[in-house]
């Protein structure tokens, strides 16, 4: 990882807090956290990684069509998600499993998507405003920006009360930054001064294409030209992710306009279970990033603060239970009824849906119920 001079890092790889001058301004956000808050960061990251492992195994066993692992990106996701407030709206791409966990999504919902029984299906308002995954890269940046425009129109932001003022955060990756929709989202966000944080996880690879093909300048500078200030953080440092996101979200909700955070991280796993990263990157590169692993780094920090074995063993045990429960529920997922094809294509009655549903019912019935 190239440490550009402005990159915010609070937690060193050895687990000590050694911020430089620019980073030190974020220390008060960390000092305001309780031991329980910090323990929760660890629990979130460990649960997410165990979730990834279980889902990957389920895919390998034919239970899921696909799995895109978030392994390695847990600090960027957990820190930023924990920095959001309950009234905020979060628009993910498709790898934000740790964000989903933090926002209280029953991540079984994600498993249902990857098993092929729904194309989404969860109610964002029932899960703390965690919106559906988006697979056409970058398109969610415009949805988030439009949503944030609506928040402003409602007067639900910039009243001066951070406990109720709303903000919007959109997650996307280094590959997505090349999509026109992301650039257009910067334009609209800047024009309408939306209460919004663009949270970019630069995991260095867009499937097999390195970030150098997406951009010849550091990506946090990309948004600056659109009038959206950018800042780069060590994305494997959960404390930096939390503190910088907290500050930027609160500035956005206070009427400060949109901004972007580039979290430098690494996709330790494959792009998805269909990918073979050995064809395009070296073992040495992967190993160098594993040395910066977000969970082991934070565990060192917690141990230096006096957290003991019992805590870590308890978190690991709970994650095992979580995984076992997930496996049981996944294997029990039934194939959805065929009516699902037609239901909800439109919100209002539609003659073609009615006609084709009736035809399929009659066709299936023609097999005498044995089909």
């Amino acid at each position, binding site marked *: 990882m190239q440490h550009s001079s402005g990159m915010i890092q609070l937690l060193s790889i050895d687990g000590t807090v050694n911020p430089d001058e620019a980073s030190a301004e974020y220390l008060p956000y960390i000092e305001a956290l309780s031991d329980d808050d910090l323990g929760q960061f660890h629990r979130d990251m460990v649960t997410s990684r165990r979730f990834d492992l279980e889902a990957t195994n389920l895919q390998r066993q034919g239970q899921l069509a696909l799995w895109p692992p978030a392994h390695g990106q847990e600090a960027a996701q957990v820190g930023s998600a924990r920095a959001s407030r309950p009234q905020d709206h979060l628009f993910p791409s498709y790898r934000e499993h740790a964000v989903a966990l933090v926002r209280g999504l029953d991540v079984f919902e994600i498993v249902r998507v990857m098993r092929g029984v729904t194309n989404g299906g969860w109610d964002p308002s029932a899960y703390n405003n965690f919106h559906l995954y988006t697979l056409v890269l970058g398109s969610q940046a415009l*949805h988030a920006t439009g949503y944030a425009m609506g928040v402003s129109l409602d007067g639900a932001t910039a009243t001066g009360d951070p406990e109720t003022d709303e903000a919007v955060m959109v997650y996307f990756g280094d590959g997505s930054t090349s999509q026109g929709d992301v650039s257009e989202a910067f334009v609209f966000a800047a024009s309408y001064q939306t209460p919004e944080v663009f949270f970019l996880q630069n995991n260095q690879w867009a499937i097999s294409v390195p970030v150098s093909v997406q951009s010849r300048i550091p990506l946090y500078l990309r948004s600056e030209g659109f009038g959206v200030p950018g800042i780069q953080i060590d994305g494997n440092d959960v404390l930096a992710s939390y503190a910088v996101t907290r500050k930027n979200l609160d500035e956005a909700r206070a009427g400060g306009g949109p901004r972007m955070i580039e979290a430098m991280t690494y996709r330790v796993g494959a792009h998805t279970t269909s990918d073979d990263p050995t064809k395009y990157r070296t073992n040495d590169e992967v190993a160098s990033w594993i040395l910066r692993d977000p969970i082991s780094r934070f565990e060192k920090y917690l141990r230096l603060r006096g957290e003991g074995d019992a805590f870590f063993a308890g978190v690991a045990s709970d994650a095992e239970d979580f995984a076992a429960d997930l496996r049981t529920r996944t294997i029990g997922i039934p194939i959805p009824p065929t009516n699902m094809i037609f239901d909800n294509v439109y919100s209002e009655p539609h003659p073609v849906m009615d006609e084709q549903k009736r035809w399929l019912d009659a066709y299936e019935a023609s097999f005498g119920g044995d089909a």
Partner: protein
Amino acid sequence: MTTSELPLVKALNAGLKKALADDAKVLLMGEDIGPLGGVFRVTEGLQAEFGDRRVFDTPLAESGIVGTAIGLAMRGYRPVCEIQFDGFIFPAFDQITSQLAKMTSRHEGLISMPVVIRVPYGGHIGAVEHHMESPEAYFAHTPGLRVVSPSTPNDAYWMIQEAIASNDPVMFFEPKSRYWHKGPVDFEASASPLHSSRVVRTGTEVTLVGHGAMVNVLLQAAELAASEGTSVEVIDLRSLSPIDYAPIIASVQKTGRVVVASEAPGFTSISSEIAATITERAFYSLEAPVLRVTAFDTPFPPAKLETVYLPDADRILEAVDRALAY
């Protein structure tokens, strides 16, 4: 007096004004729609009346317009987007077809997408490249969208309000060559259902089917045919997805001969779809194959050739003669 004689563009303006007044969640957004009132003046005066939070200019980016409209709809608004010209809609194609059209389905019905996309479309205005196209079939092909096109000022006034009231996304194609033609607008008559087609001239020997500006061409052709002793029925589709086939099938059962016309290229078109469906549903009523009269399967030519490219009354009548020859 509840009826006024208005050009289509003023009828649309009145319909939008009524929708803005009736529902505070209705927003108008697009390029140049504010102080300018849109390049065709459809939104003239509306920003002055409703303010720049309800009627606002956007950056020059069609995908951005539709993508942010989706977010606004998620927030509970009812955005009405203006795409400046037909040929400029394609930068928004992903946001319309993969995002907007599928959002309700992806949410399994938990959210609605009440977004209207207004598109001035079609030729006969002598304009430059990309300003005279008829892209409606791309959107009619996309499940999750509703697609309509008024042909008269009265329909423009009512259908824009019905489209805005719909909880589904509606592609609203405005026949720009008809913008400045006047017709009666009844401000009190109850509206026809948005997705109904309508017999606009009765006849007995051949049925003509079309939408938008083509309806006027079909009426011209019917008048000429009548002068030659042929009785022609004309149907205005009004809705391109879904299509209301009942009046069409009833007409075919009467005439046995059909010509389907449009300004769009004919290959995999609305016209093709209607021809196929008539064949499936009214085969034994047909005395002749269903004929299509469409633009050629080429790019829209330079404007000086548009009258050759676009079907006119003579080309319609040539097809009427062919149908009658069976």
